[in-house]
């Protein structure tokens, strides 16, 4: 055995991110670590790589127990890691970036030459003199891999390496991985792309809610069985009165929304149509990076449409309107990224409240002559904090001072406080502890039951099953037809997430 963990546990406050994890990696295998967001994959890997210290349990490296005190110690043992979010300096060249991370004191030019030779050997061409800021994400990843290989590791950890690659780049990466395996190195491959894992991995460990729920040989499984292991086949069944199709105006009506990619790494949207009736929660499932963020931006007005009728909110055409104008139609939005997008980190909660509400509640929050009505905003912030049980250290702290869960409760409460007719939220409980997540989910259901239309985009299938009346799946920028939650099984949704049935309305056809 190259690496084993024994009852490895990590506790953050009340949240057990990793609960007595037992798994092992043999020499010369590609081992997949599967799990949804929040299943504990990252925490486990950080403990292996020394960025986090376990609360209890043991790491066994080449049959002797070790303490991995830091990433440097991990590198000394022979572990290398390629991060999902790259840690390169844009203004420096590839060779300079590699040099900075090596302990070896050799001239940059020599290290660059070594890197070039190694990169050619492994089929990952890297130009050592290229400035990183000019390179594509795929090329940057190659630099990170080469940097890792220069330290001659026995185990290489890759954190969702293909999430930023084109299919061609991914194929090339796989060939390199096979070559590394043939040299006797092991690879820990973190992913939630099931087809990929089945294609390249020799073994897999599946995590759910911080626990190991299974080991398997991926090529003997189907995407459906893998998905069920990841998601769990015991989905909490919440009975709801079926939403009667009334003749009422829908809360959200999206018709044939298409949009080219807006940036170098964004996904195009293809012919997305969607209806959310008043009184229901519609969930959108999907693997990260399949167009969720783009769809959210299109609905919130951060990306406007070319036709007014493409997006209708409460029956009014909104396609040409910006965010504030859409808010004035009664819509509210909570984006995925809390700090920087949902809230200005260094501004206080009341200031953040005013920022999102000035358009709709200007008369209440701003006095004549443009003076901010601090007392009114303060009262509204206190009301929101009480309603959502926001725990904070000071009366009005900066947004960045709150924990992720508490800030998310505040941001959702900020929108709920308006009683919006339409609420669109992306990843409502990402990185939020279980208690806060339950409170947020309950609040979303309550809002819908009071007659609003709620659209929830999430990568957490359990969550969608718990709160949605209907579920649709987004894959590569195309949205499937929404199916009633009673008809949606984990397997059906998992297949759609893996792209098994691309045509809208063709849900659930087994591969």
């Amino acid at each position, binding site marked *: 055995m190259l690496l084993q963990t024994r009852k490895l546990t990590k506790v953050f406050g009340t949240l057990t991110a990793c609960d007595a994890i037992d798994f092992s990696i043999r020499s010369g295998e590609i081992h997949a670590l599967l799990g949804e967001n929040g299943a504990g994959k990252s925490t486990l890997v950080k403990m292996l790589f020394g960025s986090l210290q376990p609360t209890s349990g043991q790491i066994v490296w080449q049959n002797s127990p070790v303490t991995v005190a830091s990433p440097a110690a991990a590198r000394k043992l022979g572990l290398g890691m390629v991060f999902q979010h790259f*840690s390169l300096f844009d203004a420096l060249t590839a060779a300079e970036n590699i040099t*900075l991370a090596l302990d070896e004191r050799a001239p940059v030019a020599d290290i660059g030459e070594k890197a070039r030779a190694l990169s050619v050997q492994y089929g990952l061409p890297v130009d050592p003199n290229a*400035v990183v800021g000019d390179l594509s994400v795929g090329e940057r990843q190659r630099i990170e891999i080469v940097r890792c290989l220069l330290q001659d590791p026995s185990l290489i950890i890759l954190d969702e390496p293909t999430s930023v690659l084109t299919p061609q780049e991914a194929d090339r990466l796989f060939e390199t991985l096979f070559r590394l395996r043939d040299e006797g190195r092991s690879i820990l491959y973190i992913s939630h792309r099931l087809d990929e894992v089945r294609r390249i991995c020799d073994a897999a460990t599946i995590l759910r809610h911080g626990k190991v729920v299974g080991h398997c040989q991926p090529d003997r499984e189907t995407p459906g069985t893998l998905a069920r292991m990841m998601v769990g086949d015991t989905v909490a069944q919440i009975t709801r009165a079926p939403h009667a199709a009334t003749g009422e105006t829908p809360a959200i009506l999206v018709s044939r929304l298409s949009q080219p990619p807006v940036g170098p790494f964004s996904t195009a949207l293809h012919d997305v149509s969607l209806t959310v009736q008043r009184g229901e929660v519609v969930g959108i499932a999907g693997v990260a990076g399949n167009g969720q963020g783009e769809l959210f931006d299109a609905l919130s007005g951060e990306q406007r449409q070319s036709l007014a009728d493409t997006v209708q909110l409460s029956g009014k055409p909104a396609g040409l309107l910006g965010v504030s104008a859409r808010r004035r139609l009664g819509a509210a939005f909570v984006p995925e990224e809390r700090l920087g997008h949902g809230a200005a980190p260094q501004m206080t909660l009341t200031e953040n409240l005013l920022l999102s509400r000035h358009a709709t509640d200007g008369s209440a929050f701003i006095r004549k002559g443009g003076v901010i009505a601090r007392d009114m905003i303060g009262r509204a912030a206190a009301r929101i904090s009480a309603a959502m049980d926001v725990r904070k250290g000071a009366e009005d702290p900066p947004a960045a001072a709150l924990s992720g869960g508490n800030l998310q409760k505040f941001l959702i409460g900020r929108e709920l406080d308006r009683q919006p007719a339409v609420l669109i939220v992306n990843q409502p409980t990402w990185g939020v502890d279980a208690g806060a997540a339950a409170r947020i989910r309950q609040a979303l259901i309550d809002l819908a039951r009071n007659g609003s239309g709620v659209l929830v985009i999430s990568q957490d299938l359990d969550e969608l099953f718990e709160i949605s009346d209907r579920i649709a799946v987004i894959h590569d920028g195309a949205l499937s037809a929404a199916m009633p939650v009673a008809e949606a099984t984990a397997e059906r949704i998992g297949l759609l997430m893996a792209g098994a049935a691309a045509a809208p309305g063709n849900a659930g056809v087994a591969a």
Partner: protein
Amino acid sequence: MLEAILLTIATAATPLLLAAIGELVAERSGVLNLGVEGMMIMGAVAAFAVAYTTGNPWLGALAGALAGVSFSLLFGLLTLTLATNQVASGLALTILGLGASGMLGESFVGLPGVKLEAVSIPVLSDLPLVGRLLFGQDPFFYLSILLGIGVWWFLFRSRAGLELRSVGANHASAHALGLKVIRVRYLAVMFGGLCAGLAGAQLTLVYTPQWVENMSAGRGWIALALVVFASWRPGRIVVGAYLFGAVSIGQLHAQALGIGLPSQLLSALPYLATIAVLVLISRDRRATLMNTPASLGQPFVPDR
């Protein structure tokens, strides 16, 4: 005649080059020290006082360097250890330096200074045309040229220089790699202080060997501007400093010859010419952005 003019150009350019090359190193590490003028004038008064008292200009130069370093340490304490605003602290340093030097130098006004004489390098200084110009100069001239080359080599050819640039490019990533951000910045700021102090010493030991209040006359600010207009590249700083020196001396001669242009315009010429040339050579916006230290002016407070 021409040789004499060229010699005065070198003398005018040297303090700018010294101060700017020091500030370049500080800024490349991500620290914007607007106190160059203050450090320079402190170096000038310290150098004059010590040289006058001891009669030894070399001791004066040493005192000027030490004065610059100690002033830069004060700046480092404020902005690096206490993480105060760099712009405000730098301005305070300049104001403090101008005031303190005036007070300390009051009793030296009007006294004859000690000149640091030119050191001719044997044989080489006898070369035709360039001999006297390149090898018959004062020690500050040699030092400034050596520092220009040395800083280029250090920044772009040495591991320590690479680490310094990475600290200036992204202090959070550099910290994550295990680099000592604060220590690197202290050393860079002290180097900046050393160079500014020497630039001041050059003014009172070579340029005009006497002490006059405010005699740095904005040279610290010009050095600061040179760093930015040279897009943080040592070679361009040399070009900029000499260009500025050449046009300043040239316009003085032009005024003496009585060219029919208003003297105000001629006095403005060095500034205009330097800006124009440096803007032209840094037209490549992408390259300029690449060379701009991205965390310039941002205080670094490590996570605890």
